[in-house]
């Protein structure tokens, strides 16, 4: 009789614990780097994956988008998010490779697993031992590789020869500087191609437009332009189109906003290298959930590179490619 009671009790207990687990989903937090279409799209991907897994399994909390790029804008918002105390896992785009190390380390030490997305800590290599190797994983684009891809794509369009110009945004931001490095690296493979100038628009589209217009003025044989992010790309294509040189001067851009997709359809932009922010967000939630569900024992790849999607006039209208357009 007594034994029977024990059995019933333990069954009830196990079920209670089980229901408790079911009733309380894992809370995954996302802290974006800056308010821009790239991170909005990432949020969208993460939300989709969270919905797919079900609200009983994952609850996604999105932190406030910092208004400017930099640890001074991001860290207070991140701290405020983490102070909620109900977060089981954090994925974030660190806005500084060094400033965020102690900040994220603190949360890691409290038992909260960290995934860095799009940008990384230190040099991004979490496999070797270092003071920044604690994150679970880095999920993000290889910006340098992307730069090389753009260089190669431009070279194909230009037949491997001609002057090109790089419209960058802010030398202070590591990701766009990696793109610049990759682009320079990629051009080395084409000795006939020459990088005639680099300008920084500081995230102002009008400035970018003026700078590219000037570059066209300065080099009347300019053959191609690469705009490294939303603002520089939009400014670059507007300048080329305004000069009536669309199609003559090849425009390659990074980040697939609706504006740039429209320009591609109009023939004002020749190709767009899209990162896969939606996929990154989705992967973060998926891996994060599986890691938590396994009782933090699952071995997660230390680095995941979702790769790129290159929009061209030929594939821009195909149904498959629509998922890579940035949207909210």
């Amino acid at each position, binding site marked *: 009789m007594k034994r029977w009671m024990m059995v019933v009790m333990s069954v009830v207990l196990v079920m209670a614990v089980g229901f408790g687990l079911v009733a309380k989903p894992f809370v995954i937090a996302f802290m974006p780097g800056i*308010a*821009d*279409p790239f991170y*909005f799209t990432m949020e969208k991907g993460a939300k989709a994956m969270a919905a797919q897994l079900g609200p009983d399994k994952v609850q996604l909390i999105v932190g406030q*988008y910092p*208004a*400017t790029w930099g640890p001074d804008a991001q860290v207070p918002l991140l701290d405020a998010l983490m102070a909620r105390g109900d977060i089981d896992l954090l994925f974030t785009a660190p806005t500084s490779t060094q400033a965020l190390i102690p900040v994220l380390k603190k949360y890691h030490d409290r038992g909260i697993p960290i995934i860095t997305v799009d940008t990384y800590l230190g040099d991004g290599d979490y496999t070797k031992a270092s003071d920044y190797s604690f994150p679970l994983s880095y999920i993000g684009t290889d910006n340098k590789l992307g730069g090389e891809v753009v260089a190669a794509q431009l070279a194909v369009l230009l037949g491997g020869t001609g002057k090109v110009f790089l419209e960058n945004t802010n030398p202070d931001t590591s990701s766009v500087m990696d793109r610049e490095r990759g682009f320079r690296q990629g051009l080395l493979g084409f000795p006939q191609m020459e990088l005639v*100038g680099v*300008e*920084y*628009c*500081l*995230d*102002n*589209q*009008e*400035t970018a*437009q*003026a*700078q590219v*217009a*000037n570059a066209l*003025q*300065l080099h*009347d*044989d300019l053959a191609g332009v690469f705009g490294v992010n*939303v*603002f520089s790309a*939009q*400014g670059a294509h*507007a300048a080329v*189109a*305004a*000069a*009536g*040189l669309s*199609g*003559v001067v090849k425009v390659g851009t990074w980040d697939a*906003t*609706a*504006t740039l*997709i*429209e*320009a591609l359809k109009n023939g004002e932009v020749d190709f767009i290298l899209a990162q896969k922010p939606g996929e990154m967000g989705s992967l973060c939630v998926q891996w994060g959930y599986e890691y938590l569900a396994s009782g933090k024992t699952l071995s997660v790849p230390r680095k995941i590179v979702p790769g790129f999607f290159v929009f061209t006039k030929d594939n821009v209208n195909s149904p498959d490619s629509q998922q890579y357009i*940035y*949207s*909210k």
Partner: protein
Amino acid sequence: MVIMSAAGEVRSRRVLARVGRSWALLALLLMLLVFSLAGKEFLSLANYSNILLASVTLFLLAAGETFVVVSGGIDLSIGFVMGLVCVTSAIVMRDLNAAGASQLICVSAGATVGLVLSLIPGAINGLLITRFRVPPFIATLGMWGIANGLAWLFSGGLPIAFLPSAVHKIGRAYVGYYSTKAGFSFAPPQLTTREDILSVVKIIPVPVLIVAICLVVLGFVLARTRFGRHTYAIGGKMDAAVRAGIDVRRHLLKVYVLSSFCAGCAGVILVFLSNAGSLTQFTSNYELLSIASVVIGGASLTGGRGSIWGTVTGVLLIGTLNNGLMMMGLQIFYRFIAIGIILIGAVLIDRSFPELLYED
């Protein structure tokens, strides 16, 4: 003898004062000369048109700001009002276009909604300043945040795309085109080779023409009308203006609405120029650049002085400096230093020349 020398002194002082007043213009001409000699590509019609195109929004923002500064106030909200209007206009144009409305309706409805919307922040600023005696700096700084927040709210932070095709056609149009191959035409000639395209002489970009018309109107209003006179009177001495029977509150309200409306015009023009509705970025500092242009143009932040003509010179000075330094290959950061020095220098020069006592 004594009288002669006194008259001579007055004359020379007057010349000196004139020079001092229009130093910005002289500096501009000097700068054009230096840059033209330094870089071979600077001296060309296309480059001047680039300078003008790059300054289009700043022209409008600074012209509106001129009225406010002359009245003795300051308007910090204009940059974000521009962004708000730009986003809203673009949304209206996009949605009407998607709903199948005709191009003309899309564009005119979008522009109208934007311009009407732009009156509201100015009216609120004006009411806060005139009825509730909130300092202009604070009232417009508050609006700075609110307009920015609303722009985010409306756009979701993404640039607005898929506008009617007339938008970019207008934004990139020139008044006329001439080339040896295609002759003169009002529509852009259909050319394919680079040589042909580059050989086209393009006469005055349409946005520049529109802005020029706006500037002429605004300049006329400030210099020649009673409205303008009253603006100077209020900036010169508020009490005197009140005693002279000017309805100062009403007038200041109008000034802030006008400034906001100019920002709205800039926002609508920006839609055409960029073929997108974009938010004003935090780092853009349009309001500070506008104030800088107004001051370089000879206005005083204590009010009562300034002109549209001076402001135009100020904007051109900044635009030319940016363009010229870029042509010389200097990085953008050096331009911040150059503008800072010119700004302080402007006021110092202004202070060191005597007042022009007698107007002729």
